[in-house]
């Protein structure tokens, strides 16, 4: 009985603490976090300082192929590091607006631990708003903003033989994994199957990595470069030639959505356990439409995913139907007001995909941004948080 009341008191105390923690900043600075209030003031002295993200110094931006760039960053000391295979959100500012995009880290954790550096390898998207801008927009010596490392596409502790399958720039998280694996002693070997249409990124580095694998304290890494133009896409026969016994192997796949789905299905069909297949979807919009051709009357109809309170609802787009109408048809009760693009009551965050603004005729980029549901038509697959 006595302990119960004690518990009650401590619960009450916690409630009071929580109440103060929530309400004090709201009361004193009209913001959930005190730092948000001071952010513009602090930025006067520390450029790009931000409450929600980490500052990162730009060390270099270089072109490593006709449409691929390498970006080297030095995150602030507060940044908490990453596991190989993880990605970060990079926030850049163009003409007053912030744009946030996700990129895998291609360097190994060792580079961060030793030199406080990370490297991103980025393919410039056709018609993209961010990636083609980076090479001239980012200046060495200036600062940009990054998020903490995210993602579950990371190595496991299992001793199984590992098969890494990459396509195109999908090599980036896998390169980071290899960079970390090479220092780990593994009894079993690692196979990298790397598909590319024209050129293989990091060809030299990867070859060196493979040639070092006979050294002591280095994992045994076999690298297989596949030209998907001449040698075709992934097939089980191809895999059998590389490693005849793969049933117990662990698979890490990174590349375009279609490639991942096909490869995954083929492996499962052969009897590979689902738990042994990890994947990371890359460049979900590899086939970006020619934006000039999009008009209100002929938007490409795809799948719209509304996320409400973390619950996804999938809806098929119908011609000339706004996202607001689609959400209403799905009985999601979205917020709305004027239904003519004036009042901004129906504003939501589009997580990915392209939308067309019917009042301005403007076509969005593929990344995350704020949209008004009542005047937005989906173009292809779109994901919206409402």
């Amino acid at each position: 009985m006595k302990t119960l009341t004690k518990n009650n008191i401590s619960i009450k105390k916690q409630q009071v603490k929580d109440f103060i923690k929530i309400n004090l900043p709201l009361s004193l600075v009209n913001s959930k976090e005190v730092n948000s209030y001071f952010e513009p003031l602090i930025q006067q002295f520390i450029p790009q300082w931000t409450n929600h993200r980490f500052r990162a110094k730009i060390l270099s931006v270089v072109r490593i192929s006709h449409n691929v760039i390498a970006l080297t960053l030095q995150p602030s000391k507060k940044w908490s590091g990453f596991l190989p295979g993880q990605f970060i959100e990079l926030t850049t500012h163009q003409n007053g607006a912030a744009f946030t995009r996700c990129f895998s880290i291609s360097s190994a954790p060792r580079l961060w631990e030793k030199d406080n550096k990370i490297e991103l390898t980025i393919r410039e998207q056709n018609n993209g708003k961010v990636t083609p801008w980076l090479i001239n927009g980012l200046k060495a010596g200036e600062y940009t903003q990054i998020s903490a490392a995210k993602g579950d596409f990371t190595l496991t502790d299992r001793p199984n033989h590992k098969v890494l399958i990459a396509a195109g720039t999908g090599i980036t998280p896998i390169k980071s994994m290899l960079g970390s694996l090479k220092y780990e002693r593994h009894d079993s070997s690692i196979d990298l199957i790397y598909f590319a249409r024209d050129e293989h990124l990091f060809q030299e580095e990867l070859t060196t990595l493979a040639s070092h694998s006979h050294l002591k304290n280095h994992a045994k890494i076999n690298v297989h470069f596949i030209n998907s133009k001449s040698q075709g896409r992934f097939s089980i026969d191809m895999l059998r030639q590389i490693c005849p016994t793969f049933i117990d192997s662990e698979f890490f796949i990174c590349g375009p959505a279609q490639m991942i789905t096909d490869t995954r299905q083929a492996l499962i069909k052969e009897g590979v356990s689902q738990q042994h297949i990890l994947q990371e979807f890359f460049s979900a919009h590899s086939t970006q439409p020619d934006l000039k051709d999009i008009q209100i009357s002929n938007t490409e109809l795809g799948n719209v995913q509304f996320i409400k309170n973390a619950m996804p609802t999938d809806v098929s787009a119908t011609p000339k139907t706004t996202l607001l109408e689609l959400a209403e048809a799905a009985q999601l009760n979205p917020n709305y007001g004027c239904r003519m693009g004036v009042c901004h009551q129906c504003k939501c965050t589009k997580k990915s995909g392209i939308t067309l603004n019917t009042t301005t005729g403007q076509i969005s980029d593929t990344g995350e941004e704020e949209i008004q549901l009542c005047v937005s038509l989906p173009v292809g697959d779109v994901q919206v948080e409402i």
Partner: protein
Amino acid sequence: MNSTTKATTQQLPIELSQSLESDLNELRQRTLSKVGEEDAAYIRRIIRIERWSGIFGRISMVLGFIHPMYWVFGVLALAFSKILNNMEVGHNVMHGQYDWMNDPNINSRSFDWDNAGDSDSWRHYHNYEHHTYTNIIGKDRDFGYGLLRLSNDLPWRIKNTFQVFIYMLLSLLFEWGVAYHELAGDRVFSKKKNNRKKRLSAHDLKRAFFSKAGRQIFKDYIFFPLISGPMFLPVLLGNFLANLIRNLWTSTIIFCGHFTEDIHTFSQEQCNNETKGQWYHRQMLGSSNIEGRKWFHILTGHLSCQIEHHLFPDIPAHRYTQMAPEVQAIAKKHGIPYNTGRFSRQYFTVLKRIIKYSFPQSATKPKEPLTASN
């Protein structure tokens, strides 16, 4: 000449409204294409000025024990900060004018202002109800705030005779008047019929009202006075005065935007199925501008360009002064009145309007000069 009698304004003929629509859309697109770095830098600069002067004001007020002038400066700086926060920052950010910046702290959905009104309910009733149904009697609750009779659309009641005093009281307590009005006070508290689209339940609205109001009272009348120790009372009084100055200013500016002499009102039937052009037309007839210098426009949050604001509520407000001459030219081209004038003149006609409608409509001489009904 005086078209404020009853909601009789005619809709614009279809050809004219189409031409008006395309002219204004073109101006909108042209202005939006310029929006960028400059606007982001501008709003950040205003936010910095707002915050530094707020911090300075609160400290200076405490230093009042050294010399009372510190206290006076403190009060003025805090009032200035609150005015900027409400007018140029809060109002405009909550309209979504800066959402394109993708800055989580300068975002219409998350911004909260230093004002008794809960920003979520405000966003609904102001951005949606007031801006969509501007001056439609029965739909735009901002027209007279349910307290004042400002046109003959409402029947005269004896209490209207004293509305000048109600107006003065409303001005002094403006943030509270608006906060209360936001949750449609009469409906939520006394459970009258509710014909509005229900977005938030009465319970939610009430809770939002009390928690926001509680936080504001805590800040200005408990927390800051308390941490000032022996300066408790002067700080309390100073905060009260700063809020009062802010209230007077905002109320005065807002009244000049919609309740000047030649403002038109509309009936619900008139506005059924209106086109965008007709909507633009109604916004122009329902709003009035105040002329002034740059600092004046900033302090009004560019509500001095109320016409431009009502035409383009989501364009960064500091662009309105550039757009105004063009809007005026478009108005002239389409034969639409463009209501603008000096502050003193506009405010004088607001007072005239409040007094005029304090008394019942004179049925025999509806078009007499206003002074006749006094």
